[in-house]
C-alpha cells in the first residue's frame, strides 16, 4: 500500500504537469476571453451574466447553475481543467492509500502534511473553478505551484510510512495539524489569486514588460482582489483556530501554551501579517496594491513556517519531520 501511494504520487505530479502544459497551450492558442465577459462574469458573482436585482419576476427565477460551465469555451481549456480534476483525484487516492498504509490520518510528518495541504488547496481551487468558470485560466498557476510543491516535498521531505511517535499521539495534534493544513491550502490559493491580481492590475495599467502581458488572459483585477479577500477571510479564522489548538496541545505536551519556539514565532508572524492585510483592506487610504502585497508577505511567512523553520532551526521543539 505504501509503495502504491509512492507510485501514485509520481502519477499525480505528472498529471499536474500535464494540466499545466494544457493550460499553457490554452494561453497561447486558445480563444481569448473578452474583457467584458470576464468583467461581467466576476461582477455578477457567478450568477448568469446580466441577471440583476431589478428583474424580480413573478417566478423567483433563480438562474439555473451551469455545473459544466468550466468545461465550455474551447477544447484546450476543457482538457486542461479536466486534467486538474483527474490529478486531484489521483492526489486524493495517493493520500488515502498513504493513510491506509500508516493506519492513521496522513498528517504525521512534513511529507504527509504537504501532501494533504496541497490537496486541500486544489480542492479549494476546484470549488472556485466550478462556481466561477471565468477564472479557469488561473489553473495554470495552481497546477504549476502544486506540481512544484509536491515535487520538492517528494525530493527533500519524503518519509517512509511509520506509526505516529508518542509526542504526536494526541487528538489535539490532529485538530491542530488538520486546521493548519486547511488554512494553509486556502492561503495558498489566496496567494495565487493575489499574485494574479498584481499581474492583471499591471496589465490594466498598460504595462507591457514581463510578466504583465500574461494578465491579458486572466479575469479583471477587481474580481481577483475580491476573490483574494474571500479566500483570506475564510482561511484567517481557521488559522486562528489552528494556532489556538496548537497552544492547547503545547500546554499538555510541554507545560506551556506559548513559548516563542521558532515555529510558534512564525505562526504568530503570519497571523499578524494577515491581520494587517485585513486591516489594510478596510482602510480606504491604503492602496490596493499594498494590501495585496501584505497578503503575499503573509504567505511568505506561512512558507517560512512550513519549510524554513524545519530546515533552518533544528533546535525547534517542532522538528519532528
Amino acid at each position, binding site marked *: 500500500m505504501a509503495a502504491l501511494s509512492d507510485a501514485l504520487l509520481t502519477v499525480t505530479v505528472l498529471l499536474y504537469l500535464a494540466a499545466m502544459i494544457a493550460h499553457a497551450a490554452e494561453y497561447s492558442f486558445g480563444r481569448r476571453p473578452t474583457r467584458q465577459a470576464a468583467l461581467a462574469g466576476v461582477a455578477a458573482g457567478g450568477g448568469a451574466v446580466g441577471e*440583476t436585482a431589478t428583474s424580480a419576476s413573478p417566478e423567483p427565477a433563480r438562474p439555473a447553475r451551469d455545473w459544466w460551465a468550466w468545461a465550455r469555451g474551447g477544447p484546450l481549456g476543457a482538457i486542461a481543467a479536466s486534467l486538474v480534476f483527474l490529478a486531484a483525484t489521483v492526489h486524493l487516492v495517493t493520500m488515502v492509500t498513504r493513510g491506509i498504509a500508516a493506519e492513521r490520518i496522513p498528517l504525521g510528518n512534513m511529507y504527509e502534511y504537504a501532501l494533504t495541504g496541497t490537496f486541500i488547496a486544489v480542492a479549494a481551487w476546484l470549488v472556485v473553478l466550478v462556481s466561477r468558470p471565468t477564472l479557469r485560466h488561473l489553473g495554470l498557476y495552481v497546477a504549476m505551484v502544486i506540481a512544484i510543491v509536491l515535487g520538492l516535498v517528494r525530493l527533500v521531505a519524503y518519509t517512509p510510512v511509520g506509526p505516529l511517535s508518542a509526542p504526536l499521539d*494526541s487528538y*489535539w495534534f490532529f485538530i491542530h495539524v488538520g486546521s493548519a493544513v486547511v488554512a494553509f491550502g486556502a492561503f495558498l490559493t489566496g496567494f495565487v489569486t493575489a499574485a494574479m491580481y498584481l499581474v492583471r492590475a499591471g496589465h490594466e495599467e498598460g504595462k507591457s514588460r514581463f510578466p504583465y502581458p500574461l494578465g491579458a488572459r486572466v479575469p479583471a483585477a477587481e474580481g481577483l482582489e475580491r476573490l483574494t479577500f474571500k479566500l483570506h477571510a475564510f482561511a484567517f*479564522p481557521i488559522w486562528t483556530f489552528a494556532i489556538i489548538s496548537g497552544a492547547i496541545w503545547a500546554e*499538555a505536551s510541554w507545560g506551556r501554551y506559548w513559548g516563542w519556539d521558532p515555529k510558534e514565532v512564525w505562526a504568530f508572524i503570519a497571523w499578524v501579517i494577515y491581520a494587517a492585510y485585513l486591516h489594510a483592506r478596510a482602510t480606504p487610504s491604503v492602496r490596493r496594491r499594498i494590501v495585496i502585497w501584505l497578503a503575499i508577505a503573509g504567505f511568505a511567512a506561512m512558507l517560512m513556517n512550513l519549510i524554513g523553520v524545519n530546515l533552518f532551526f533544528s533546535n525547534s521543539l517542532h522538528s519532528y519531520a
Partner: protein
Amino acid sequence: MTVPRPVAWLRNTWRQLTSMRTALVLLFLLALASVPGSALPQRSVSVESVARFYERYPDLAPTLDRLGAFNVFGSPWFSAIYLLLFTSLVGCIVPRIRDHVQALRRAPVPAPRRLSRLPAHAAGLTAAGSPAEAADRLHRALRARRWRSIVRRHEDGTVTVSAEKGYLKETGNLLMHAAMVVILVGVALGAAYGWHGNRLVVAGEDGQFCNTLSQYDEFGLGNRVDGTGLPPFCLQLDEFHAEYSERGEPLAFLAQARVHHGDGQWRPVEFTVNSPLRLDGANVYLLGSGYAPVLRYTDRYGQTQTVVAPFLPVDSLGTSEGVAVFPDANVSPDGERDPSLQVAFEGRYQPTASAAPMLFGSQHPAEQDPLLMLLAYRGNLGMDSGEPRSVWSLDANQIARGELVQVGEPEFLAPGETMTLDDGTTVEFLGTQRWITVSVRYDPGQPVAAVGAFLLVAGVVPALLGRRRRVWFRVTPAESSTTDRSIVEAGGLPRSGHPGFAEEFRQLVADLPLTIVDAPAPDPAVAGRST
C-alpha cells in the same frame, strides 16, 4: 471656543494613535520585530544556544545582548510596540462599543428619499391591503427572517419599513478585539504569578522529590512570586515504561508514581507526554527520558560505593553519554582523604549495541543488547572549587591541569560485568535505571488566556463572514381607490462589500408577501455596483 494648545495636541495625538493607519503600521512592526526572535537564539527557549552564540561571535554577541536580541519578546522595543498597539486597540474599540450599543438600541434608519438610487432597487410591486396593513405584514415577515425592522407612517399617507441585518459582524469584530485584551491580561497574569521548576527524577527508590525550589535543577518565578509557599506535595517515581516501534520511534511512555499533599498519604498516579499530572496548584509534565547506568566501585580498602548516573541521550536511538563520579573513593579506614585518589568514569551507553560499538551508536532505544563503554579517571575531581559544574561531563580544567588523569583504555561492559583498574580496584556495571525530566508548572493566567482565545475564535468568524445590509420598503396607496392593493417600492444597501447582495435582495423581494406586477428592464447600473 478655543482649546488650549497642549490639550489640542494631546487630542490630536490620541486621534492619530487610535486611527486604522496607526494600527496597521503597528501590526506590521509587530510582525517585523518578531523575526529576530526566531533567527537569533532566545534565552527563554534555550540558554545553551545563547552561550554557544557568544562563543561563536564574541564581538557581536554583547552588542546584540544590550539591544535585547536574545530576549526579543521581553525587550523594551518589542514591549513598546505591543503596548502602543493595545493602547490603540482599546482607544479604538471603546468608542466603537459605545456606538454599537447605541446602534443596537436605535431603530433602523429612515428610508432615503429616492430608493431608486440605491445599489439594489425593485419597483412595480404591489401588496394586498392598505399601506398600513401591507407595511405591517412586511414588517412581520422581515422579523420572521431575523431582520431588525421598524414601520414609520408619514403625513402624506405613505408608510415605510426600514430593516437592517448583520449586526453580528460588528459584534464579532468588537468581541474579537476585546478578546485580544483578555489574552494579554492572561499572559500578564502568568508572567506575574506563575512559576515552574524542572528536574530529573530517577525511577525507583531514589526517585522522590518535594515541591520546593531547592529540589529543582532549574526554576523560573513570576515577578510577583518569591518561591516560598509553593503548594506542598511530594512525588515518588516508581517506574517508567517506554515502548518503541521496530524502527525506534517512541510509541508510548508511561510514568507510574505516587503523590502526597504534605499529609503523608501516598496515592498512585500516572502521567505521560500529552497527558500531564494535574495536581492541586501545579501540573507535572513529562519532558524527556533516558538511561542511568548503575555502577558499583570497590576501592583499595575494599569499600564499595554505588552510583546511579543519569546519562544524556545524544541521538534518537538511545546512545547516551555521561559520567559517574566517586568523590569519596579511597578514603582510608581511619578517615584520611587523599583528593588525588578520587575516581570517576566517563561512559557511553548503548541500549542496543551494534556489532562495532566503537564506531556506531545504539541501534534501537530499547534495551535489547545493552553495552556500556567506560573510561576511568583518577585524581582530583575539582568538586571543592565551588564553581558550577556539569553533571554530564568531567571538569575539563582539572584534566587539562593534569590533576585528573585517564587510567588505562576504555572497556566495554555488559550488565553484570566488571572492569579492573591498574590499582586493582574494580567497577561493576550493575544495569540501568530509567530517568525522566519533569517540569512542574503553575500558570494562573492560563484559564484567562483560554477564555480570550475562545472569544477570539467566536468573534472572528462572524466578523469576517458576517455582512451588514439594509433594506427599505416604501408603501404608497394605490392611485385608483378601486383596488385594495398598495404600491410598494424596495431598495437595498450592502454595508460591507459582498457581491452576493443583489441576489439576496432579489430573493428577499420574491419571498416577501408582495406581488410583482411589471418587471422593468434590468438596470445595468446595478450589477457592477457592489463593493
